[in-house]
């Protein structure tokens, strides 16, 4: 029998184990070769594993609807549905999970603020935030890079976009904890109800921000959306503004936290690559892309077939729910040479699909890349001798859609 405690990579899946991490890479490598599009009984989804097929689905939004992107994988308990309804949670399909033509209208308004110009303008403030987070680690010997570093930082950056320059760290933690569990985890009843209460609290917080910005407009996302509404109420409604404000934290927090965790985990596991970065921090952008490729924070993204479709030679019925394995597509040997090697100098690392592709392509991608670049530069320069604590369990998150270490213990060796 396989001893999973000493040799996790020998975990041999005969079928898809959506919540597990160890064994995923090997499983998908086998599937890409043997059965690149398959139906998974356990989840009830069609799973697509090759990069070309994944890109073809992303590129065809009229035949592959995004409407199921935020659907819970297991239905919410009726008590939770009732609670959210009573509390006035008006979360409608607004952007990531809505289709054309509505998506085009929303995206246009959102993109006129969430864009590279706004991100670049805030670069000095973001750099300061990263530097402050690095400074907080100094002198601490052994730290958990997830809890002590990667967890709060992306949320602070997002609150900057919402016009909240300083936010109580504990509040972030309460909101974020198990939020993804509500839709993609295998949390129990009480955990789901608790997630619901946190979600409601954040929904109301967004409502309060919007009410405030109506009176005191600033240079931030909600104010900008409100200005668009004032100019043309047809372009965006007040409810849509609350949904977009709410959605930014959902979209940009855990994802970026996991990107930091995954990339640092791979970098520290490969001493040569780490030393190369330490010696030349200008290599950081290459490591950012390779980190996103080899360790995508979003491992699975969903679509639904609007009509009968053929993908990778397999015919899927109308309405078929589809999971695209971004983690698998990013390691497709037809596109990436030696896909399992982690190489900061890989020339086509940018061709990953970690931010999706096409009309829904991640609006925060330039921001996430900027944060990651600053993190790699500043961490490698501050703690060049940092090492992973041997044999410490990364405690991979048990969620289907997003993936990252729950813990990353390192010795700073200052």
């Amino acid at each position, binding site marked *: 029998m396989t001893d999973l405690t000493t040799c996790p990579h020998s975990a041999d899946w005969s079928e898809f184990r959506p919540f597990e991490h160890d064994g995923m890479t090997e499983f998908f490598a086998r599937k890409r070769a043997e059965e690149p599009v398959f139906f998974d009984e356990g989840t009830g989804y069609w799973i697509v594993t090759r990069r070309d097929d994944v*890109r073809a689905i*992303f*590129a065809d939004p009229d035949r592959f609807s995004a409407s199921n992107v935020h659907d819970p994988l297991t239905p919410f308990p009726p008590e939770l549905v009732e609670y959210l309804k009573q509390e006035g949670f008006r979360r409608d399909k607004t952007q990531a999970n809505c289709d054309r033509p509505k998506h085009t209208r929303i995206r246009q308004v959102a*993109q*006129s603020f969430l*864009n*590279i*110009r706004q991100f*670049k303008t805030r670069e000095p403030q973001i750099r300061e935030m990263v530097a402050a987070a690095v400074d907080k680690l100094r002198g601490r010997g052994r730290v958990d890079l997830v809890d002590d570093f990667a967890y709060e930082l992306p949320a602070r950056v997002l609150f900057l976009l919402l016009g909240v320059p300083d936010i109580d760290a504990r509040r972030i933690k309460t909101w974020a904890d198990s939020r993804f569990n509500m839709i993609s985890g295998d949390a129990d009843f009480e955990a789901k109800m608790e997630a619901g209460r946190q979600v409601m609290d954040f929904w109301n917080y967004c409502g309060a921000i919007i009410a405030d910005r109506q009176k005191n407009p600033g240079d931030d996302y909600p104010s900008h959306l409100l200005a668009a509404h004032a100019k043309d109420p047809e372009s965006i409604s007040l409810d849509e503004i609350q949904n977009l404000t709410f959605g930014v934290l959902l979209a940009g927090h855990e994802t970026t936290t996991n990107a930091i965790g995954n990339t640092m985990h791979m970098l520290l596991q490969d001493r040569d690559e780490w030393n190369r970065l330490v010696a030349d921090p200008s290599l950081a952008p290459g490591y950012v892309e390779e980190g996103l490729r080899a360790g995508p924070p979003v491992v699975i993204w969903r679509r639904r077939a609007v009509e009968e479709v053929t993908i990778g030679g397999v015919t899927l019925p109308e309405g078929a729910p589809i999971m695209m394995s971004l983690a698998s597509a990013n390691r497709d040997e037809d596109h990436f040479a030696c896909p399992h090697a982690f190489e900061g100098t890989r*020339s086509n690392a*940018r*061709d990953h699909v970690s*931010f*999706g*592709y*096409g*009309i*829904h*392509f*991640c*609006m925060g*991608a*330039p921001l996430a890349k900027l944060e990651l670049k600053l993190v790699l530069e500043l961490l490698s320069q501050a703690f060049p001798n940092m090492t992973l604590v041997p044999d410490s369990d990364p405690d991979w998150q048990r969620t289907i859609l997003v993936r990252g270490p729950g813990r990353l213990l390192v010795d700073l060796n200052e």
Partner: protein
Amino acid sequence: MIKLTFIEPSGTSRQIDAALGTSIMQAATAAGVQGIAAECGGACMCATCHCLVVEAPAAGLPEMTETERDVLEFTSEEMQETSRLTCQIAVAEDLAGTVFKVVGR
């Protein structure tokens, strides 16, 4: 269908047939033009479909949106007077004969 010409990063010149209604980027990548990564798939986010317009059509090209200008200015190091993101231009009859130079790897 119209004819468009692309000068690839290697210097090779390629004439392609582009279907009306698609974007210039889609037509070029479908025809296998080298150097257009189109990382974001046409969402005006990545600037990896950046080309220079070497020979513009008589009627000129459609105006740039502010978003296209921002992405070019902030994402691409080589923005020039003639720069365009080809995913933001739809293939139309009066673009026939336009020559683009690919700014890519």
